[in-house]
């Protein structure tokens, strides 16, 4: 079930989500990493980072909050130890990078550009911009575009640059468009929306960091919506759909919305084999519905209604029925623009 992320071919559309598969070694105890489309690393930073204090995690209904704080060894150790380990095993590796300034992202790209074994670079834009009073890059189209174009300029031309977007914005399409204009070859969405929970025993925030990112099936409706909106506005741009994928059905949902690859995050914590299970389930679903190629399913739910039969035939107007369907509501721009 081949797919393309920009010009890079992946043997299948299932990838890990950034920050959810550590260095890859841990996951490789459970299955051969070559069997998935790509491994996305956790976001790599310039310096080593100890991350945030614990508690870093809180379970929420059908989801979890995390505030890891990008704990990691820094780019040097990554290039010395983790990337070579993956490269030796020919694991298709998308390196996620995170920075606090446009320059820091650029510096990371510069370090990666000659590193062997980099299939793609994913730019985690959900970081506070030191130069703009900590305003998160991903919430600002122009700051996002600046980061992307800096990374794109410094990264080898044949390594696709993927912009990872957040749903915590009024208009995700505007950010997506800015990133594409800035040179993004593909988009990945969604990163975790900012959430919080309070421990009603201690009467304090559950997380030491107070707020954290919400992930898991709870956010899947947000991910589907973002993928849908962006695919509608920018149909030519490859999208990695991420958010709450637990099963092949969920992956299929994001693909129908417009994703050509699907990232699996929180599900890996629940089931370390989930990538392969999801892949198998997805293959079965596509087969059962007669799809020959994955590409035929990408964005399929956008085709005008009626071009395929509604499932509940009893609700569809009969062939000769007068056309009493609702005229487009001029004010529902959210839908009518799609």
């Amino acid at each position, binding site marked *: 079930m081949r797919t393309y992320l920009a010009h890079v071919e992946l043997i299948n559309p299932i990838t890990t989500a950034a*920050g*959810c*598969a*550590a260095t890859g070694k*841990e*996951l490789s*105890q*459970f299955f051969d990493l070559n069997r998935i489309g790509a491994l996305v690393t*956790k976001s790599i930073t*310039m*310096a*080593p*980072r*100890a*991350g*945030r*204090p*614990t*508690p*870093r*995690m809180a*379970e929420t*209904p*059908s989801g*979890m909050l*995390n505030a*890891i*704080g*990008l*704990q*990691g060894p820094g780019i040097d150790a990554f290039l010395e130890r983790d990337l070579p380990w993956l490269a030796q095993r020919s694991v298709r590796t998308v390196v996620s990078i*995170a*920075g*606090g300034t446009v320059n*820091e992202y650029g510096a990371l790209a510069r370090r990666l550009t000659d590193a062997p074994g980099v299939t793609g670079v994913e730019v*985690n834009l*959900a*970081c*506070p911009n*030191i130069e703009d009073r900590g305003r*998160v890059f*991903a*919430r600002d189209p122009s700051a996002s575009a600046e980061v992307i174009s800096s990374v794109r300029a410094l990264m080898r031309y044949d390594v696709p640059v993927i912009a990872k977007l*957040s749903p*915590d914005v009024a208009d995700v399409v505007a950010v997506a468009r800015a990133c594409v204009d800035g040179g993004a070859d593909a988009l990945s969405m969604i*990163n*975790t*929306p*900012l959430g919080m929970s309070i421990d009603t025993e201690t009467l304090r925030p559950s997380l*030491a960091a107070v*707020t954290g*990112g919400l992930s898991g*099936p709870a956010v899947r409706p947000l991910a589907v919506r973002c993928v849908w909106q962006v695919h509608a506005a920018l149909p030519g741009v490859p999208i990695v759909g991420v958010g709450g994928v637990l099963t092949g059905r969920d992956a299929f949902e994001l693909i129908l919305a417009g994703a050509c690859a699907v990232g699996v995050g*929180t599900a*890996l*914590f*629940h*089931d*370390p*084999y989930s990538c392969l299970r999801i892949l198998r389930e997805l293959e079965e679903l596509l087969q059962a519905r007669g799809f020959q190629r994955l590409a035929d399913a990408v964005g399929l739910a956008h085709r005008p209604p009626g071009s395929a039969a509604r499932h509940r035939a009893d609700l569809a107007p009969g062939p000769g029925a007068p056309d009493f369907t609702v005229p487009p509501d001029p004010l529902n721009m959210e839908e009518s623009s799609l």
Partner: protein
Amino acid sequence: MTGTVLTTRRVEAYHALTVVAPGIAERFRPGHFVAVAVGGPQSSMLTRRAFSIHDVKPDYGGTVEFVFTVRGPGTAWLAERRARDTLDLVGPLGRPFPLPRDPVTCVLVGGEYGSATLFGLADALQQRGCRVDFVLGGASADRVFGALRARRMGETTTLTTEDGSLGMRGKVTDVLPGVIADTRADVVYACGPMETLRGVTAVAIEFDIPVQVAVEEAMACGIGMCMTCVLPVIGEDGVTRMVRACAEGPVFRGERVRFEDVGTIPFDALGAPGSPSGGGGTRNVS
């Protein structure tokens, strides 16, 4: 990963489940734990719950037993499992207790359900000719796990309860110095609440004997991928790192764990915000 529940039992304040899981039983070593999915197929609870393996048996190809207390909704659900239900477990996980090469004298200290992990360890130690003495404690008699079995297996067994309802009134750390002195212990193993482990480690340091502790940190994955379960541990090189309790642990040398700093990032930890190693403020916020 799906096993059938063979038996369920109550042990004083605790519940115990025995599950058919040959793949786990086969590879078990004392100190290992399992990560259990809770709530069934359409559960809103996504993260697995971690439990030390109490016992493995060869029945039905291999069974594992774990002992637990009901804390929140996940353990409440587990407490309702019945024989023949299926349970989804991942394991064995974690770094087990290292065993001494020589037939030394070991004091095994357990607090509350922490004792559950010590009997497999005692077994392995005794097979190597070690002498085993137990110190088990809990808030009250019904929260001291495995007293009978300890009495059968141990050279001596000392029990403590905070309310005095069983053994000595007080904590395991109150009696531990006496036991170490009496038995001339060479090494201490401990499992229990962090507070207990901190105290046990302090005692062992006083006696200048090694101590191995199995810690408990909130975990989301149990397999080293999510980075939620970290605590500050001093490495061989003297550098403090935030290490994963599930992958590098749960068993650590007690002296290396910075118990006072659990729940913080010590300023001198590798990559701490203020540290010279860097650790700028970059963070994934949303």
